[in-house]
């Protein structure tokens, strides 16, 4: 690491503190919209405590000024106590931890398709500018960008599951679900595809992939347009630069110029977007998981929201916010690493 990069990373890490304080303050402000009795549920870790709500209000000073409450609340959150979820009958933190692998699996399969697919489409669209291919790509991008993800999911289910009786909703078929829960199958990561490989259990692996296809198609269709658009305009900008003309003048064939010179520089803005997109997938997961009954964090959060399970919703928002802030941090550092000019700002 060069000195300038190290300085940049240090400065960026310092900036993390006010951002996190601001974020927790915002979430805390949302909790203040509830009355003290409802808020007390944020501090409960066990349903038996529910009988002594008045004690909780007193213990955490829920009728005290907001800065005392904020401090108490923050200490609770930092110690990992996100409260008790009525809708899931478990601690919110445990719920997030046990449900996260399902969401991670969805993201891990969708993100490479979105990024690589988007880069590929954006690149050919730019290189073949104003041809039929370009127009087709642009129209597809606008369609993908305008499709409501929940409606796309329902249409896919209606066609494939309803019409052709393939690709059912859920994460696994019943037999596979029973097998995974039994002692024979060891859970390592919670990602069924990965665990199936480690267990050398191919039927479960195939079943998991089978259930992933429609949700992954949905997430990819909705998000691919974003990367494609940025890649296209970035590529067009690079192709118009003098160094490209110079490279061509030196007699390099256009394939080398496009692949080695233009594409590399055009990828820089795509890096930023990809990071933010990955973090933002949590939003997409809420809807996609609900449509496909894919039981990840998003499904859990949506259910909790409808049942007005306040601690779960607040805990999930906090989790999503922290994930987003961390993703932003990684993107910024990566960006500074790729493009040294950023460090000087």
């Amino acid at each position, binding site marked *: 690491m060069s000195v300038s990069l190290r300085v940049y990373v240090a400065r960026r890490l310092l900036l993390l503190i006010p951002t996190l304080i*601001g974020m927790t303050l915002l979430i805390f402000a949302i909790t203040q919209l509830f009355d003290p009795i409802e808020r007390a549920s944020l501090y409960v870790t066990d349903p038996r405590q529910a009988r002594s709500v008045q004690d909780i209000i007193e213990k955490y000073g829920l009728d005290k000024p907001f800065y005392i409450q904020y401090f108490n609340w923050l200490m609770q959150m930092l110690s990992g106590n996100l409260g008790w979820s009525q809708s899931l009958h478990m601690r919110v933190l445990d719920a997030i931890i046990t449900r996260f692998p399902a969401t991670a699996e969805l993201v891990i399969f969708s993100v490479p398709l979105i990024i690589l697919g988007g880069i590929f489409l954006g690149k050919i669209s730019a290189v073949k500018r104003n041809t039929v291919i370009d127009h087709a790509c642009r129209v597809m991008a606008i369609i993908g960008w305008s499709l409501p993800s929940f409606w796309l999911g*329902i249409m896919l289910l*209606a066609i494939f599951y309803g019409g052709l009786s393939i690709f059912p909703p859920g994460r696994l078929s019943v037999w596979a679900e029973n097998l995974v829960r039994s002692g024979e199958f060891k859970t390592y990561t919670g990602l069924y595809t990965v665990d199936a490989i480690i267990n050398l259990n191919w039927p479960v692996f195939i079943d998991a992939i089978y259930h992933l296809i429609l949700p992954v198609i949905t997430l990819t269709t909705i998000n691919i347009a974003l990367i494609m658009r940025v890649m296209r305009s970035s590529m067009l900008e690079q192709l118009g630069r003098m160094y490209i003309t110079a490279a061509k003048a030196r007699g390099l064939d256009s394939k080398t110029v496009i692949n080695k010179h233009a594409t590399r520089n055009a990828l820089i803005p795509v890096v930023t977007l990809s990071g933010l997109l990955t973090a933002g997938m949590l939003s997409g997961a*809420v809807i996609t998981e609900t449509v496909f009954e894919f039981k990840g964090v998003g499904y859990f959060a949506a259910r909790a929201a*409808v049942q007005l399970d306040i601690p779960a919703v607040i805990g999930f928002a906090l989790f999503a916010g922290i994930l987003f802030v961390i993703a932003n941090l990684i993107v910024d550092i990566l960006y500074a690493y790729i493009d040294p000019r950023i460090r000087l700002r």
Partner: protein
Amino acid sequence: MKTSMELKESPRIKEFKFILKRIRDNPLSIAGLVLVTLFGIIALMAPILAPPIEGRDPYVIPRSGYYPEPQPPSPEHPFGTTEGQYDLYYGVIWGTRAAYRIGVLVVGVSVIIGILVGSLAGYYKGVIDEILMRLTDILLAFPGLILAMALVVAFGPGLDSITLALILVGWPGYARLVRGEFLRISAEDFVEAAKSIGCSDLRIIMRHILPNAIFSLLVYASLDIGSIILVAAALSFLGLGPPEGYADWGQLISLSRNWITGTANNPFAYWHVYTIPGIFLFLFVMGWNLLGDAFRDVLDPMLRRR
């Protein structure tokens, strides 16, 4: 005095004509304009296209019976009925009006807050700018849908809560945009000139800076309406929207979820239930996205005259 005003206005009229010409030249832009206008007409004509029952909230869909199974299109119900015998035709027509209402309300209020906050920050700079921009940083440090979801839960489910939540999530984007434009335009010579002849701050902001920032706001707002309607429909789909029976596309799509498998001999027996409200929502969003895209191509100085 009047002639000098006219002289000052004329480049703006020329600009407007240029925009219209560019939109006319692009088939995708025309498609966007046509869709947006068409939905606008549907929204305005809703009381004529689907007359509501006297004395009832027109946004509540009339139902014929309580039988759960949706009925196919018939002369009485041109688009059929959905779960619980709600008339789909009435639902999508008034749903268009509801969508326009949310879109215009959210964008309108966000624009006003954005202009107030953004111009304060961008014109006075310094501490005010720092405080206001850190506030927007915090709000933008969240995935929008999730923040909106938490807010709707806090306010209590319903369309008003969704509208309020979307405004709270949406205004920072406008404030950032207006601030950026103010910083850029304040540095121009004509602002300096206006200051030197003693114009008041309010006059400089209202007469000199804001009119020059309007086009960027227009692009941003037109691109924003589509996504606002998508998020509103998504929240309603999740079950955080108005009570059952309200003319709302998200809810109508949600009501179709139980009917995707069809009957034993016809897997697509209930096709109308999930297809029709979805197509309305999709075309509405696409219309606004196409129009916003057209505005951006036309107004972006980097792209426009190529």
